[in-house]
């Protein structure tokens, strides 16, 4: 069925109706989350008690808004820190990987490439526990042998960053490799002919060409880190990132405060997505 082949009207209408229903299904959960952020009630459910901004700006119990709720603000800060660290690390390593696979033919290249893809097909929770197990055995080993307590290897932000980095790097590598493959290497050779050394040629010719992909990878890595739940759940210490903090609250019972946080998250990520699209356009 393509537009150039005539089809009966009924089939066409049914098809279009299905597509409309599908998009309603996609939008519905997000729409209700957003709408109930403004409900003047203790519960994010019907009946509708009237419109309020209190779940954003409220200062007094029982309606403390997002902007006055310390726990949530701190969790947002933690998530932003983790996201920025993961993005920086994974894009740096991803760029290096992309150059390695694009520029060098070596023994074991195929094996390494498959190994590099593996984190995508390992369940997040398994990645989390394996890193937890390994770092604990290293920490225990250090304690038993030299009586040094490696606080850094106990559940906490460092492990969360490493855990997320372990699979997000695969994605940044793929994103950056895709663009590097399209690069015309004669441009680099031209720079070499004009007297630049290798490093200068890469820095002034190849890297600017890769920039859109690298910025895209930063945004994707940051968002994936911000959203990550499974791996983080197993590695988290006392500083909970936002998804974990929200999960703990949701288990206790939800107030529209969570809707307000969610709405802010939606706005934040759409803004990031728009920035990324704008960058991609310019390139």
């Amino acid at each position, binding site marked *: *069925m393509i537009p150039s082949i005539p089809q009966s009207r009924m089939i066409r209408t049914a098809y279009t109706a299905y*597509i409309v229903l599908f998009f309603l299904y996609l939008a519905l959960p997000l729409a209700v989350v957003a709408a109930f952020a403004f409900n003047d009630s203790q519960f994010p*459910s*019907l009946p509708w008690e009237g419109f309020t901004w209190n779940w954003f700006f409220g200062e007094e119990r029982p309606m403390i808004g997002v902007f006055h709720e310390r726990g949530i603000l701190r969790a947002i800060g933690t998530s932003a820190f983790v996201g920025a660290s993961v993005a920086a690390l994974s894009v740096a390593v991803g760029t290096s990987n992309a150059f390695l696979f694009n520029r*060098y033919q070596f023994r074991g290249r195929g094996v390494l490439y498959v190994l590099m893809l593996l984190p995508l*097909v390992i369940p997040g*929770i398994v990645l989390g526990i394996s890193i937890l197990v390994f770092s604990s055995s290293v920490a225990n080993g250090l304690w038993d042998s030299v009586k040094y307590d490696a606080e850094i290897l106990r559940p906490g932000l460092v492990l969360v960053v490493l855990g997320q980095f372990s699979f997000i790097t695969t994605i940044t590598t793929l994103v950056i490799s895709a663009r590097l493959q399209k690069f015309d290497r004669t441009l680099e050779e031209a720079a070499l002919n004009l007297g630049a050394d290798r490093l200068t040629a890469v820095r002034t010719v190849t890297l600017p060409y890769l920039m859109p992909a690298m910025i895209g990878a930063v945004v994707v890595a940051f*968002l994936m880190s911000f959203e990550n739940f499974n791996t983080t759940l197993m590695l988290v210490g006392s500083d909970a990132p936002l*998804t974990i903090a929200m999960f703990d609250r949701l288990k206790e019972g939800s107030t529209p405060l969570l809707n307000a946080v*969610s709405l802010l998250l939606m706005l934040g990520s759409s803004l990031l997505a728009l920035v990324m699209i704008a960058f991609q356009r310019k390139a």
Partner: protein
Amino acid sequence: MRNQARLGFYLLLTPLLLWLILLIVIPHIDMALLSLRERVGVGKYATSMANYGTFFGEPLYMWTFLRTAMMSVLATLITLIIAFPVSYYIAKMARGRTQSALFLLCLVPFWVSELVRTFGWMILLRETGLFSTLLQWAGLVDGPVEMLYNDAAMMVGLVYTSMLFMVVPLVTTLESLDDAVIEAGYDLGGSGFSVLREIVIPHAMPGIVSGSIVVFMLSLGNYLTPTMLGGKDSLWFTELIYSQFIVRFNWELGAAFGFMLLILSSVIVWGTLRLTGQTLEKTMG
């Protein structure tokens, strides 16, 4: 010059090896070793298969394992069936601006955290939720209906959460199918159904395979959706792993569970790739 190239090669190789060896390979070996350890006394351990014995011996564990696998396969199939017509519409029916707008719309829900999406379904499905109120208002039911905390609610959540990972690869592969090929199919006397079966689906196979693998993995490894939307009977295997590690502090058994989950997912991914003649490099890379 040659030396410089060599140096560059090792400089680029080091971060890759550090990442893969320290964060992927050794941790998994360590986890496998831990799962083979049995506590025989205070601070004393012996190598044995006891943890796997517990896993295969206890019906609850085995049952949860199989159920999680079956439900994940089901979630993958439902996602594929829902996503295919939509992807086909975006790739072949829509044109120009509509096409890119629809594609972007598909992506939007996935820019927000899975937690928010799950929360949305909780608001819709719970006893005081939107659907229940709507049904009462329409006079179809007398009292509030609880639609949350059962397998169906969990399935809705799982399918919703992984939809994007099916739509994107499908749209990409379907877009590369030339309209002329479809027209030729019709010219040669094919019906809509036979064109779909003999031209469109074979062409979309790489997309179907990679989408299915990702969706299956995401469902299998999901913790949030079964915990929040599923009921008492819809225990998910990841919940068992979590409780062994964090609640009971029995890491040995938890590691064995983790390893079983890893084996299950590897077998299914490998089997799917073999059956359809695809490779991991082609479908993921």
